[in-house]
């Protein structure tokens, strides 16, 4: 795959995580059940959030895409 430039990558991250954190995808995780002692919905949001931070770290600090 051709390496995308930083702007494209950042725009993509924005779009993907906007989708993941809004209705209707959000409704899939919207359950009161506890997973490993933590509410599933809460776990989902913090998981997605951490994933996004991880991706940003990867792009900006490790991969060092050309700005």
């Amino acid at each position: 795959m051709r390496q995308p430039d930083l702007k494209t990558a950042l725009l993509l991250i924005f779009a993907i995580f906007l989708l993941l954190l809004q209705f209707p995808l959000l409704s899939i995780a919207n359950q009161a059940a506890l997973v490993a002692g933590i509410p599933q919905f809460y776990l989902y949001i913090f998981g997605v959030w951490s994933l996004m931070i991880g991706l940003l770290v990867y792009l900006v600090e490790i991969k060092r895409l050309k700005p």
Partner: protein
Amino acid sequence: MSLQWLILISSLLYLGLLFGIAYLGERQTQRGKSLVNNPYVYSLSLAVFCTAWTYYGSVGQAARQGVPFLTTYLGPTLMAPLWWIVLRKIIRICKVQRITTLADFLSARYGNNISLGVLVTLVCILGILPYISIQLKAIGASVDILLTHSGQKSTLVTWTNDPALFITIALAGFTILFGTRQVDVTKRHEGMVTAIAFESLFKLLAFLAVGAYITFIGFNGFSDIFSQAQAVPHLRELFTLSPSQYADWFWLTLVSLLAIFLLPRQFQVAVKENVNERHLLRATWLFPLYLLLINLFVLPIALGGNLLFPEQSVDADTYVLAIPQYFGKDVLTVVAFLGGLSAATSMIIVSTIALSTMVNNNLLVPIWLSGKSIRELKRERINRALFNSRRLTIIGILLLAYLYFKFVSGQFSLVSIGITSFVAVAQLAPCLLGGIFWKGGTYQGALSGLLIGFTVWFYTLVIPTIVQAELLPSHLLEQGLLGISALRPESLFGLTVFSPLSQAIFWSLLLNTISYIGVSLFATVSVSERKQAELFVDVFQYSPSTLSPLEGAKVVLTADIEELLAKFLGRSGTRTLMKNFYQQYRTKPQREADYRLVSYAERLLAGVIGSSSANVMVMSVVRKDDLLLEDLFRVLDESQQLVYANQKLKQKSRELEQLSQQLKQANRELQKLDYLKDEFISTVTHELRTPITSIRAFCEILQDSPELSPEEQEQFLSTIIKETDRMERLINQVLDLEKFESGTQQLHLQLVDINQVIQEAITTVSQLVKEKDISLQVNLSPTLPMVSADPDRLIQVILNLLSNAIKFCNSSNGYIRISSYLVEGVVKVNVLDNGKGIPAESQEMIFEGFFQAHNQTTKKPVGSGLGLTISRKIIEHHRGKLWVESEPEQGSKFSFTLPAPPIGRKLSY
């Protein structure tokens, strides 16, 4: 020591520490070791976003509504990846144009318009003042709750009666000390930023400490809190969103996404105090990480509080303090209190600085300067006046916030006022984003969008709170303005599917955006506005020297510019700045200032008094009589002509390019021809040398060997004659070819019966055919028309094809078929053999001269190697075609066509 004294002393120590850190920050900068030039400090300073709302309010909101509190942090998190695209552009524009506030930014973008700056300033003041006041409220409430619970409220120590006032005064001092150090506000407040970064770190650590204590010591970890809460039905509901909350979830995320770069305090730290654009890159992940960490314990604390105080005996907004106190941990309680104090103070300090700059540059300075001629102004008075007005503005803003807290905000929660502020500043989004990405956005569009958005905001979000405060009759909410139900503020235009808050966000942003775009499309644009639009949208393509506030040939004297600068920046300062300018642009002082000097001066002034006032000031020294509309039109006209000439030039250069392409192509062909010619000549000479060598050899033998028998002599002589014949033939053929190629070959055309020519040729080769034992099949159509041709040339072609067929056909049982027929108006002759065939890649090359000579796969060249070349030339001169169809091992079929004469001349026999 009583808790009261503990709080007092720790607060004083904390504030002292803050002053100390700010002082250190300033000193390090003066020593050239800036603490602020660092992506971590930058990211931490952005966390001024997290105020007392985050610190206390999120827990309260989570305790009441559950997960929706997260939207306030998910919005900025989602925005973070876009910073490099949006915020970097804003930062660059501000650096280039020396812009310090949002109001300045928008007024500069839309043609240095003062009224727009005034409007934006008012929006910000109305939106942010309540927000500042709830920070004061949070501080007051936090002291209150500590003292109430510890039962020490009655003690008469004056400051505890009004801790908010004490803090307000202290912060006014801090802000004045570290926020108004230089006249030029584009200078960074490094001391202030250092202190803010420290406060961000402190509030995060304090909150994490409280959260970790409650979660892991107060309870047995996350799962303990969550499973206890799950057992309580109304607490279990806090784990999820109800379907009706999805819309709120979206709109609140959107508003906080916009707030992260539109709040004046965020603009201050993210844009104005930015040292290096690249710091944004690290903040892109550090800031979301900060937000994640500070939210990690919010829900556990909220649920813990709800579990510990089941009868709602304690306000959920104070759980962060109340829970450590409940567990009797005094030190932790004080740490929690100081964390809240740091969250509140950092917001107050930065917001106050941002707002005071805005008020000064967009309200006070224009009013103060209006009607004054530049000659009346005295430098000392200007500086003193600027400093004083900034200080007074800071005090004024804090005082207003304090009064608002005292008399109005007491009854609202932290979150509701915070959100109202967010929606207010979100109204700036269309004209700001449009301003940096769309050149078509105009002043009228921005003004109307802002007015409409702000009006809707006020009507749908502020009016209901005024009604709640019983300052307006309640039927306004229930029946709408003038009893029109479509105008009910909480469901405007009958929109009831959204909550009152969501519909307010929806309508205000929608109508704002529509009118911004709509009015912009129909508005007329001034020249200076168009120029600013260009400079903002394409900021990465322009250097600062392109900036010019002057269009056309207007005369400004350098002395006037210097005089003007000296008024605001002092004599010696001006001298240094002028020297810098001449060095930077490598020019010498001249009597008349060029546009670069003018824009340089304007940018310098913009740093002191804001861009629109700076523009007015610079225009005041422009010679009035030169400010003619005609000049503008002339410039426009000239630029039109330039554009036209430029297009012409481009077209010409395109044409030239095409020509040179053609020339190159022709040259390549010539070179190829030249090469072919050379090759041809070398081949011909080579071919000539072979017979000459053998003739010479035989002649020498004859000369040197008189003893040869007559038979032998006879044999040698006949070989010599044969070789001479071969040479002659070759020379004739070369001459022939030359004639065809130079076009001097004459054809003696006459009507010819082609079958007759074929028969003659067959007769000629019949002996050869018989010798080689080849079966020759002749298949001629009896109804062929006569063709117009040169019979001698034609027989040459047919003989050539026949002799080739004889030469190359199968040696054991050779077979040749010759046929003629009429097809599609042409006479076609085929000569077919059953030889080895010709590979596809050679089928065209055999028609080029000496193909055999170059590809001697056969033992010895048979024939001159020019036969087919000449045959093709002959047929082409008859306006016919000669080609070959062949497959390896399948034999070859040579065909040629000759045009048949028109029907009238058709003869048959």
